[in-house]
């Protein structure tokens, strides 16, 4: 992740008043929360077959996270909407804390 992207993310989440080291820590935490919530909601939408396929993708993905994202984008209905909602929620919550 380049400096510029990190800065943009920090700004989006209201972290720009923090020093860069703590920004990094917070960006990581925010990312973790986003991931957890998106995955949970995505899995919730899956039927058995999709879950089996997803599990296979996870088994072989290794460090190739693009595969995982690609699967979710392609197969989970309204995946973008899920991401959008969770992102909004996170942004709102973090902005309230850090603004």
């Amino acid at each position: 992740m380049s400096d510029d992207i990190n800065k943009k993310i920090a700004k989006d989440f209201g972290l720009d008043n923090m020093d860069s080291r703590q920004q990094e820590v917070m960006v990581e935490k925010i990312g973790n929360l986003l991931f957890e919530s998106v995955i949970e909601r995505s899995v919730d939408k899956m039927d058995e077959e999709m879950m089996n396929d997803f599990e296979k993708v996870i088994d072989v993905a290794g460090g190739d996270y693009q595969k995982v994202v690609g699967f979710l984008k392609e197969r989970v209905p309204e995946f973008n909407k899920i991401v959008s909602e969770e992102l909004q929620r996170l942004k709102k919550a973090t902005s309230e804390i850090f603004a």
Partner: protein
Amino acid sequence: MNESIEKPDQNESGFEKPEGFENLSLEYKKTWQEIEKIKPNFAEELKRKGVRIEVVDALMYLASYDEGEKVLKIRHDANVEFLNDYIENILKPDEQINELPDPGKLEDIHIEDGEEEGKEESGSEPNTGPSPESKEGETKIEYMPVPPPAPDAQPELAPNPPVSEPTSNPESQPESTPEEPPQLPVTSESTIPPLPGSSQSEPTESTPEPKVEGQNLPEWKNTEIWKKFEEARYKFAYNKAMLEYGRTSKGYFDVSNYDFENFENYIDLSAKNYKEWRKLVEEDIRKSISKTLGFDLENLTEDQKKELDQNTKIEVFSLLEDEYVERRKVLKKIKEKKGLQSLAEKALEKSKEVLNNKVAKWYISLSKKQRLALNFGIGSLVGLVAGAAGSIGVTSYIGWRAARVATSASASGFAGEWANKKWSIEELNKEEEKEIEELKNSDLGTDEMAKGYRDIKEKYKKERLKLNLKKIGTGAVAGLGAGLIVGAIENLSNSVDSVPNNNGPKNIIENKNAKTDNINNDRVKPREGFQPDERKGSPSVKSDEAEGGKENIKTKKLFSDPSILKHKVVSGDSVWGVLKDKLNQIDKFNNLTEAQKTFVLSSYTNEILKDPAKYGLAEDGSVFVGDELKLDDILNDEQNFETITKSASNNIQPNSPQESNILENNRKISEWVENNPNSNLSQTKIEEILDKNTDAVQSRDGTNLVPTEEEMSKILSDDEPSELDSGAKNNELQPEQIVPKSDPSKSYGYEDQKNTLESEIEDYKQRLNTLEGSEQSGQSITAIRSPYSDSQDAQLLNSVEMGKNDFVNKIYNESKFIGLFRNKGVNTNNWKFMKVLDANKVLNYFNDPNNTELPENVRQTLSTSEKHANLIKGILKVTSDINDKYNVDFKPFSNGENIEDYIKRIGTFLIKRADK
């Protein structure tokens, strides 16, 4: 069960105590004493179900029951009153709720008298448990959210979790369920402590009452405010979950008549309540941290304030994380409680849980960088950092670019695909056009778009340059300066994943399977360095054998144990670093100066880059964790090593300008790295730091040691026709750069040449127009590269080319391995070095070595190479013959005509004359 709270039974519950009970702390023993006072019937029921009891320190609530594991966890500060109520709830039958109450029938749902009593009590003291039980025989309270009240009614808040419920026969209860969701009474009185600030609210001043039982909990988690905050959070999470499931879970609820809007208002109040309590908790956190840091809250300095604010916010953020955990737990409970009618559905839910855990494990296995790229790649789908779909649209080109990469808008979006693919010029051009098109269609402003356009053009220009250079085998993207840059990226770059290197700069490396989202320009590759020139003892002599295949000639070995030249890449490694580590074992290398070592490493890296795969690298020269580098071929040749080190000693003298240049660059980069520990050191950044065009490296006398970019463009334009693609037309040849066709009927004095040139440039412009027209109609324009692009001269072109090749091959052919392998002269580095030189200057040098404009290194090469001398002699002989025979003054143009073109022009002259 309609019992009021009774005094705990004095008989032992009979639960199995943990091992080593006698050695437990007094605290734990006290808790077990409470456990043993649980009502006998409850205890019996729990034992019948096979429920195990554990006493724990850290738990969000006083108790938590895991139905799957059959474990009841009890916090050490729980008392028996609470325990009895809690256990009563978990032993209750599962309520099957299939529809929300009819909003028109609110009067059917009301609070039990018992609950009202509970409300009074809870208004004055903290409520750590459920409200008192209702009276026996009273109307059962449904486990569902109370429908929104009439618009003018004051919405109420959920009562304390968990809530007791009357049952008819506790002993015949079916399998218990976990924590009951709270009820939402419609009456105006709440069972929970009212909002802070209201008449019944708790004092707003925080009055921490540290409870001894909170052993490992921070101070602010031992207060009443914290408890109320937890309750408010639970309620809010529950309400939200109910709404979500009401909306989305058909079959769970019949939502046809449900008034979600009002329920949302209800949730808003619940959210407001939660936030109000959170503010109080934040104040407590702030005070606690201030105390820990030794600050005086009344007299904070600016720095102290900033530090305190920062630390407080980070701590408060952990509350948000807890909120997520809470929501998940509540969702799970609701799913378990409601609508899961069949075993198949339950099994599916269980599978989902297992899958979630698996995904979590996989996620943790990723590196921090990968997780960041993954998460914000996902986020960019909907506008985080880029895009127009999300709430924050992209305003910067950087953001747009990141989103492109993250969302793989084009094939080049996948950095891994980009880097590992073998691009052709045509493919690169297509990708460039595609990116530009996408940029045009983006929502960026004009300035950002202009920035983006420049960035794209620059990126593809570099890629084409690299591609062409690889084709012609120079291997040098630029001179020694750029080699330092790329080497610096390897050695000095900071990364969150870098392994600290106590010897100084940190190394970075990419994970083998990581397809990062960085665009190609930010990828780290082995150091591309100086291409040593062709002189005796030149370091890159070995590469001449590449065409014929590497012979297995016996050479003296530099390392006694060749196995150490295999290296498995670990995090923090770099090719440069590995090479250095190995060579550090050789005394002769160690005795070199820093700059000379740089030269040596540069030479080796250059060699590796000519065929990365051979040495265990990726096609583009990158390395990944887990790769096995095979350096035996390149490092274990003593003769080669001697040659390179000698060259280093000769080229980089102590206190020379070259040495100063190298050391100064290193210093600048080190300084920047020290001052920016958390920033990435990309190639672009390095160039910025050094603030120069590093394509040119100065030789001892200040002239360029390797071709400048301008010369490099010339190199590209002088490629063999067969190697060129039509896309190269983007290099925008100017007619002046094209050597005009000579007219043998004219004399070749200077003025005549000048006039000839001018008129032929005009002529050529006409030809250019014609050819462009041909290109649009699909005809090949590779001939534009040649001065003889007139279609009528095609045969002449071929003849000239063949003639030139013959002439060059005779001089420069090389044979190896007892003549079994032959390397054609036109493919050798010797020719490639010679052909781009200014013909005029070269010939003048041979005529008068003391009066030359050639750079020192070129002079040295020419003066020490028999082959070069033979070529020049040959040229001079031919031109002398021409001049004699045709009474002309045939010589190179003074505008920079290179050797190759000069030879071709000679050939053309002769062929045309031969026809007559």
